[in-house]
């Protein structure tokens, strides 16, 4: 069935040719000249400083016994080295001495504040806040800004992520960026499979391979299961977004040349269930960076999970200290005390049995900034030089090694997921999920 395209001043075909469909379009908003936008692999567009370093905020986050992070307009990250626990996470009390006191870094050594010059001019959502010593710091939407020492290249978001995190996770640092170029009623969410387009009610958005911007084939019985995303009367085409008239007075949103739908049979937010229907796929503003070619995707009893060449599930380690500054402990340059406790009762040899690193093949090379091969000293868990005897070339995700679990024996086993403190959220391991039909939007 042919439906007339209402182009509203934009010729989609010619326009589409200009669009880089691999990355996400964003709205230009007023900003200080010293900052610009970087397109990242996983988190879409982010703001960065003149060196290309991503800017992060540290939002207030409710924990079990209090709040951590920063209230609007109030820097909380300073140069004192924190030495005792905060007692945010029961049942353990505050005041216990934190590990490796002589090697501990302060918050600002890991998260340098984004300093504002004395003559810095506030603009739009960008303001200047005063630190305790009287120095000035940039803020965005009143959240003080920092960079991460873990980021090394323009577009890195190694320090944090915009992925959703739960109440028992640490108070993470989160990259900031410009608003996505979306019509009202839409949203974008960072997941392990890409920047997923949804409605503002978290309904997944789908497209049908049989449709084009001018031809719709989802009609009649097809509409029993698929609901066109209808645009309001005043909606106008813009950028990658266009409109078509399904029937007189009923206009449907079109994104990158494909009419958009929700799936009536989806049973949960951010669902991928509709993509099981032949010809239908979720819509992403940009796909997640490719994983190594040797990796596989396995079906488990809870969804699809990333696995190695033999089908063994891949796990990531997460760690955040129970300290007032909520510093991470999941990077090979962080203390390894927590990880070694969890994976091997403090014994590195046991860790290699229970949670072996995913060793990179001799001919494999790093794929992108998200999936890199790094060298680890297995005795310490720290980054090592390539030449060291016994060092391991291992796969890493966001510069953190990934692991297999000794208790998994068959493809699709996820027996290690949730191992560690707080169901693997604070000092433990979680499976690398690619599809979530059961876990309330865990991707």
């Amino acid at each position, binding site marked *: 069935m042919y439906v007339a395209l209402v182009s509203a001043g934009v010729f989609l075909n010619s326009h589409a040719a200009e669009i880089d469909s691999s990355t996400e379009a964003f709205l230009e908003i007023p900003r200080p000249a010293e900052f610009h936008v970087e397109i990242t692999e996983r988190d879409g567009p982010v703001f960065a400083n003149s060196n290309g370093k991503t800017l992060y905020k540290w939002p207030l986050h409710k924990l079990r016994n209090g709040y951590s992070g920063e209230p609007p307009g109030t820097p909380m990250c300073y140069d004192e080295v924190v030495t005792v626990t905060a007692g945010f996470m029961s049942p353990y*009390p505050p005041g216990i001495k934190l590990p490796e006191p002589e090697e501990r870094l302060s918050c600002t050594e890991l998260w340098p504040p984004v300093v504002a010059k004395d003559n810095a001019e506030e603009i739009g959502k960008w303001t200047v806040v005063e630190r305790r010593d009287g120095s000035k710091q940039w803020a965005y939407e009143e959240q003080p800004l920092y960079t991460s020492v873990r980021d090394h290249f323009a577009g890195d978001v190694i320090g944090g992520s915009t992925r959703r995190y739960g109440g028992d996770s640490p108070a993470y640092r989160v990259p900031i960026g410009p608003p996505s170029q979306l019509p009202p009623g839409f949203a974008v969410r960072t997941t392990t499979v890409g920047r997923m387009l949804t409605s503002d009610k978290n309904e997944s958005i789908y497209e049908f391979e049989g449709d084009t911007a001018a031809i719709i084939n989802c009609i009649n019985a097809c509409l029993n299961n698929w609901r066109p995303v209808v645009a309001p009367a005043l909606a106008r085409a813009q950028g990658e977004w266009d409109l078509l008239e399904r029937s007189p007075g009923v206009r449907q949103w079109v994104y990158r040349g494909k009419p958009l739908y929700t799936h009536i049979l989806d049973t949960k937010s951010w669902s991928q269930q509709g993509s099981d229907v032949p010809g239908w796929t979720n819509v992403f503003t940009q796909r997640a960076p490719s994983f190594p070619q040797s990796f596989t995707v396995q*079906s488990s*009893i809870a969804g699809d999970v990333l696995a190695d060449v033999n089908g063994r599930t891949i796990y990531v380690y997460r760690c955040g200290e129970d300290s007032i500054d909520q510093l991470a402990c999941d990077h090979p340059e962080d203390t390894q005390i927590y990880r070694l406790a969890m994976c091997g009762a403090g014994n590195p040899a046991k860790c290699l049995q229970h949670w072996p690193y995913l060793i990179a093949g001799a001919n494999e090379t790093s794929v992108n900034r998200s999936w890199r091969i790094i060298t680890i000293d297995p005795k310490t868990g720290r980054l090592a030089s390539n030449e060291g005897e016994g060092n391991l070339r291992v796969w890493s995700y966001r510069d953190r090694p990934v692991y297999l679990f000794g208790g998994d024996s068959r493809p699709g086993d996820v027996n290690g*997921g949730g191992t*560690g403190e707080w169901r693997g959220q604070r000092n433990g391991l979680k499976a690398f999920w690619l599809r979530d*039909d*059961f876990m309330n939007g865990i991707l």
Partner: protein
Amino acid sequence: MSRLAYLTISMALTFWSTGISVIADESILRDGKISYVMTDLFWSVYQTSEGNQECPRGYNDGPREQFEKLFPAHEYLTVEETQLKQEIATWHPNADPEEFEFFEVEGELSWGLNLDGEVGPNDFVHPDGSVGIDNEVYRAVGCIIGFRGPDGVEYIFQNKAIIDRVYNRMMIQLADVDSLENDDSVTVNWFRGMDRLLTDATGQKAMSGGTQRIDRRWGESLIRQSTGKIEDGILTTDPIDELVIPWMNLSVPSVHIFRDARLQLNLSSEQATGLLAGYADVDTWYYQLIRNDSTHHLSNGQISGISLYKALRRLADAYPDADLGHNTAISTALDIKMTQVYVVDPLEENSE
């Protein structure tokens, strides 16, 4: 009068007198099949008032109480010496002797079944007088507050998860059924469903008559088949060698594995209630618990994972492993409630 004639007349009278459709048991059978979906599942814990009979010495301490006793001056100690020491003991448990006195159930009575057909010195007596009841999980958890109803944290949240989480949506389909009252041979199929439960307006009470699609995308490995019989409305199934029950309460997909698993269910056209019993794999049992419930959650129920693992290993009574030198499974019984449901098989074969 034949049973069929009786039912027919009974139904007609009911229609005539009330105008409401009341369906006799057998009429709900479709091609000799009826299905039920699980709505409640929890470890059978025989309780007396204040635990006087089964826990005369009181209830066990949990992680918070143990931490305070072990580290009264924690401010002088490090994370490695305190918190991580306890977490290591939790995640790398052993069966070494207890540092704390652990209160096992001391009473003689327990819910459950005689799994091994024998009567031994460690067996319980059923409240109805039956002997030889095997339920060592009860002996381990019966004096832990978190496992006791109606307020125990595990009792509340694990049961709640059975209703709330589609991941846990196990169901049985009885096939080759002639009568829900008596049938000397029926087939019992286990599947996972993939839909929300039909509930009343509160959303909490499951209603019969809903529909569930069989999960053939993710749940194929959970499918099992066994046989059984119905006597006086009670279904008793033959043991399944290994039944896997998916059980997630806090977003960590995990399972319980039951060896020699069997059902004893009181059947009606609307529900099936009774027991699921068998031998639980000890390690799977333990890690299901601690992967879903952090030490914080366990503390709320005064559940010390460290002590509980020792008890499970100490009381394990089946499936000895010669290499390991100890039993790997422990007898158990679970209270189970199921409600009638219509099953749709995406393969379009066994749909009701």
